[in-house]
């Protein structure tokens, strides 16, 4: 586990050794706490998963980081500085279902939106921006779909368009909300490759994830969340039966009998509460 020491150095940076540093974060929706006193430290260069049951505050945590939800208390630092000073180093991928895919636009146009931050208010995208967006589409295997209406894309293709929009931002920290939700097997493999490629280039990824079975194969760093932070650290250390029970309650079903020993790293939960069971791919 990482230390809780709070260091502000001479440059005015706060915990600059972490890609994402969240301190005492508390957030609420209509009075009840969704996040309670969360301290989170994600080192740079890892693929981090935020895992927890429904309503554990996973998405809210990401929204607090980007300023879409105003926390009741606490601070967020990205590479040692507040988010508003580091926006250009962060790319956010919302849940695919959070937007209306019947919006009249093309895949290429959505990806180009990733460059709006750099363009500022008045400058319009030109040839250079279009080329960059096409390149990002190619990285997710969607270069042939640039002019396609987004309403005509499958769920997996829509997710890849969202990822391309994040790639074109050329960020250092990628925040992804359920990137694997409702995608086909091909897209799931493509996203895994993409994440590994990002890590290979020294980028940091923090993804909300809901599939306990794939956490340890896809990610190398894990934060277990259920309103409070249960545990955080390398997957090997955090992915234990004890921690999972603390996050999901005693009803968590563990496939591997060996995992019943406390502290065993080989736990392979088959499913948790019915609501959290993985839905079949939609496409």
């Amino acid at each position, binding site marked *: 586990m990482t230390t809780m020491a709070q260091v502000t150095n001479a440059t005015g940076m706060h915990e600059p050794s972490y890609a994402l540093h969240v301190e005492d974060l508390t957030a609420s929706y209509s009075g009840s706490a969704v996040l309670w006193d969360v301290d989170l430290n994600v080192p740079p260069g890892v693929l981090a998963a935020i895992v927890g049951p429904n309503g554990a505050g996973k998405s809210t945590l990401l929204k607090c980081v980007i300023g879409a939800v105003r926390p009741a208390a606490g601070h967020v630092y990205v590479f040692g500085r507040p988010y508003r000073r580091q926006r250009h180093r962060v790319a*956010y991928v*919302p849940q695919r279902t959070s937007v209306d895919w019947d919006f009249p636009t093309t895949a290429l146009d959505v990806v180009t*939106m990733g460059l709006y*931050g750099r363009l500022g208010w008045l400058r*319009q995208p030109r040839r250079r921006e279009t080329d960059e967006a096409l390149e990002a589409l190619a990285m997710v*295997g969607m270069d042939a779909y640039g002019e396609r209406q987004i309403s005509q894309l*499958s769920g997996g293709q829509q997710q890849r368009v969202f990822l391309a929009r994040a790639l074109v931002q050329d960020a250092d920290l990628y925040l992804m909300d359920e990137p694997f939700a409702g995608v086909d097997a091909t897209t799931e493999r493509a996203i895994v490759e993409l994440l590994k490629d990002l890590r290979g280039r020294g980028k940091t990824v923090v993804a909300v994830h809901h599939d306990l079975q794939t956490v340890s194969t896809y990610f190398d760093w894990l934060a277990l969340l259920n309103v409070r932070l249960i545990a955080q650290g390398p997957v090997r250390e955090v992915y234990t039966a004890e921690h999972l029970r603390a996050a999901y309650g005693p009803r968590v079903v563990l496939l591997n009998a060996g995992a019943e020993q406390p502290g065993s790293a080989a736990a392979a939960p088959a499913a948790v509460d019915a609501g959290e069971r993985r839905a079949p791919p939609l496409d």
Partner: protein
Amino acid sequence: MELFALLGDFTVRTVAIGAALVGVVAGALGSFALLRQQSLLGDALSHAALPGVCLGFLLAGSRQLEPILAGALVSGALAALLVMVLTRATRVKTDAALGVSLSLFFAVGTVLLTYVQRHQGAAQAGLDAFLFGQAAALVPRDLTVIGIVAAVSLCIVLLGWKELKVTTFDADFARSLGRPVVAIEFVLTVLIAVAVVIGLQLVGVILMVALVIAPAAAARQWATRLEGMVLLAALFGALSGVTGALISASVRGLATGPLIVLVASALVLVSLLVAPERGLLWQLAHATTQRRSLRAHRVLVDLYRLGQAHDDPSYPSEQGMLDAYFGGRTGHVLRRLQRRGLVERVEHMPEEGAHWVLTEGGREQARELLVPFGTREHDGGGLA
């Protein structure tokens, strides 16, 4: 021609220009209202404008457009605020909040209107025109006001284009880019309210929402990009306005406002039916073609397999047997395939029924169809 004679008339020209301006603004901003699923908010805004119209008149003491527009905008904004407060602070859902707000403001507006008519002689001032719209009351000075408001609104849309687009499509993402999403949404709502308000005199508080929503709904059917949708909606809005104004001018006793709305509705109807990809008739035709080609493919493959089973590629299959294989009548399918030169009818034995064989082209196509799904090039969907 009569049309030119009509446009030569000063009053008709004033109304037509006014209607075109209102239509352009209503269409362009209606597109955003439609995409943000705020159509009903537009309705609430327009009904809620009535008390503002009366108060603007009372405060100014005369029927001038500026105070009346300002009053309409303020009371519309208050109604929108009431909707927001009701949905956030109570358990009332959006539709109920809109209903409550709309009827409350409209009731207050009607009370004020009757009061004004009794005591201030508003009938002469033409204030009741705001209920159903009265195009003839439009004077050139009103055109200037409407023109300036239209130009300013469209400039704001043009300058903030990227931000309006990204906020409308994906507000959370826009926030992550550091855009002041609440402020942008506020500006959009005000602009939609402005679009409603400048048309009140022409179309009236009851029908104005139709001119905001209908051109946008029609344009949505044809457009593939937001740019195209907004341009087309503006064009549809102007077309409805001018057409409605001209019909009303050429036939005595037909009110302009409702005619404009009828033209816009006709555009929606046509677009819903025939637009490519999204139109009902287009989809119906597409589905029929698909079903036909699927049937044709099945029959081709059945014939090919029967040939294979008999080790004779040009094995003549009996139509009755094909019916049984296919699970239904194949006669019309076979005749269509025959016209395309893929099958041939052969007389096997005169006393037996029709027999069919695949032509060389038919065999070729059947072989192509039998290549397993997913391995054909155009199946796509794979990763680079």
